[in-house]
């Protein structure tokens, strides 16, 4: 056996550098040195060749730091670079701000689930505002789920089990182990619904609609799992992404219990005439392939005092937005007056997105 192994080992081709002595190793080192020098020369060529803006900015972007570690000077440089690049690419005067979080502001959102008619205007308003890829891949940050009206009654929870299986009510062998949901009825499953509903008109009589987007959690699971800290929570409560630092591992996507994160599987497809030139570094600036994105409460707008795009478009006024630290704000009044719940509150993510009913 051992001889056989030896034979196999001998048959495996071994790299020349490993077989030979130290002299060769030295040569390898020299080779690497030369390579490094060549790379530097190449880089220098790229940097000095001012005509090729793209090459220059690509070089600079590769070596830029995490946004939070960048100095003001570096931020300014990065933004100037991006503005130049985007303006050239989209043929309009594109601005990229880096407006920081306002002091004394914690953004909160409230949505009247009773009023939502499921027209999906918010979904498309968001796309118009936030420069998402329009097709292939089509990216939307808000999803509206159609749910059928029904009762979640205790009587239903043990229906649908085969007779004699021990779960049927009235059966002496019922152990009462499983509550809600079984192989025949998904009464215990949360958030089952329809994404692709397309009726003639909305609202429909037997349905209600449930829009979901990023909840801007106070304890965001996506931030916890990010291995490179490309996503983090700003002081105004917005969970943001440094698109240049994101490595596209999609850990955050699987961590998010609200299905809020979207991944650019392909090169984003954003027509020039559709592009919104008012952008923010951490918000709606055009993305590239292989990065994660999600709702930012339109921070390019809200950090300058304007309502989000989805709030403005909602034809029934179901969406409300404001400062949670201001007791006179719309959201705080809603928290005071209305019946409010948060989605999956049991996960202790402390969302800043509230659903309410009149």
């Amino acid at each position, binding site marked *: 056996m051992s001889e056989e192994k030896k034979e196999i080992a001998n048959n495996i081709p071994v790299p020349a550098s490993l077989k030979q002595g130290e002299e060769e190793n030295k040569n390898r080192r020299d080779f690497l040195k030369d390579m490094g020098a060549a790379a530097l020369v190449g880089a220098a060529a790229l940097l000095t060749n001012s005509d090729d803006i793209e090459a220059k900015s690509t070089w600079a972007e590769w070596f830029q730091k995490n946004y939070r570690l960048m100095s003001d000077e570096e931020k300014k440089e990065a933004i100037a670079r991006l503005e130049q690049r985007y303006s050239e690419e989209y043929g309009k*005067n594109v601005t990229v701000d880096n407006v920081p979080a306002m002091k004394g502001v914690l953004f909160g959102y409230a949505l009247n689930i009773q009023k939502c008619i499921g027209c999906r*205007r918010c979904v498309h308003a968001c796309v118009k505002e936030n420069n998402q890829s329009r097709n292939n891949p089509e990216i939307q940050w808000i999803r509206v789920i159609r749910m059928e009206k029904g009762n979640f009654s205790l009587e239903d929870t043990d229906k*649908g089990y085969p007779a004699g299986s021990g779960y049927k009510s009235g059966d002496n062998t019922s152990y009462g182990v499983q509550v809600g949901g079984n192989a025949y009825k998904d009464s215990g499953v949360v958030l089952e*619904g329809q994404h692709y509903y397309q009726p003639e*008109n909305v609202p429909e009589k037997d349905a209600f609609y449930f829009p979901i987007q990023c909840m801007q959690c106070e304890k965001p699971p996506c931030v916890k799992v990010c291995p490179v800290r490309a996503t983090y929570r700003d002081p105004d409560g917005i969970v943001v992404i440094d698109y240049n630092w994101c490595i596209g591992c999609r850990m955050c996507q699987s961590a998010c219990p609200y299905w809020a994160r979207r991944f650019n599987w392909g090169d984003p497809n954003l027509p020039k005439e559709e592009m919104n*030139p008012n952008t923010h570094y951490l918000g709606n600036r055009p993305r590239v392939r292989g990065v994660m994105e999600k709702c930012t409460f339109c921070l390019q707008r809200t950090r300058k005092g*304007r309502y989000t795009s989805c709030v403005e478009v909602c034809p029934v006024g179901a969406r409300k937005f*404001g400062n949670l630290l201001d007791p006179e704000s719309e959201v705080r*009044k809603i928290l005071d007056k209305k019946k409010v719940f948060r989605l999956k509150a049991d996960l202790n993510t402390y969302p800043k997105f509230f659903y309410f009913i009149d």
Partner: protein
Amino acid sequence: MKKVKLSKLYILAASCVLLSSLLIYKLSYSQNTEQPKTQQNEQPVTDCFESREGYTSVTRVENVAPKHGFPNVKCSQTTGGVLWWGDAYDGTIPMGEMPICGDYTCGSYEKGEDAVVRPREPQLKYFNLNPEQHCAFCHNGKMVPFPKNKKPRLLAAHQDIVADSLQLMHGRAAFWCLDCHSATNRNRLIDHWGNEISFNQPQKLCGKCHGEVYIDWRMGIHGKRTGMWVKGGKKRWWVCTECHNPHTVQTNRFNPLKPEPAPALPKGMKNADHEQSEHGLHKEPSLSSAPANPSTGH
């Protein structure tokens, strides 16, 4: 030799036919492909409605902000609704005197706040038939005499607004047109104290009865606002009649809307049938058949 020549001729003729047919095909193809394109380019939806169809509308103006080059609004090409406001205050006027502010109703909106509304008067069909005297052109007491009492009667005109005046779909037949419209000044609304109210400020009238909703609206909980969320920032307040039709509230509170298109299906998915209730998700399981063959029950 003759044969060869003939065959050559044939080939020539055939190739001619082929070429011409190709040309024709190409021409017709290009016509076919260009037609829808030009149609799309010529008639994109540029007049779009704001909250409900046939009510207030906006016309898209390119380069509202010339420095950046974005339009005032972006319209949905499928439903014709406004999807995006570049200018949140397009076509607005100051709201005027702020509604009464109670202890709790004031919210963050103190005196002197920059509140604007989209005026209703320019949108009213009959109001604008006469550009100067408006409704009073006909309702001047002579051409159309002033009504003597508030007794419901059949209307001779305006059936397009109120189809059956004996069954006024507001207030459950408890009141009449003149409870809201001034009997002597048809250009104005009137509340039960006799105050005349402009068509641009319906909230002053509606709030008299619908107090609870009015309080919510005043605080910003009910209804819609666009513009700035910040305290003291300029806001467009959407007034009652921009969403509710006061003449049909009882039967037709809102006109249903056509929904915007659904998201694209994931690659490889042919349809969204898996979401339908037929697949057992929301359907009551038939208890009798389920135990016999569990695989069909799901």
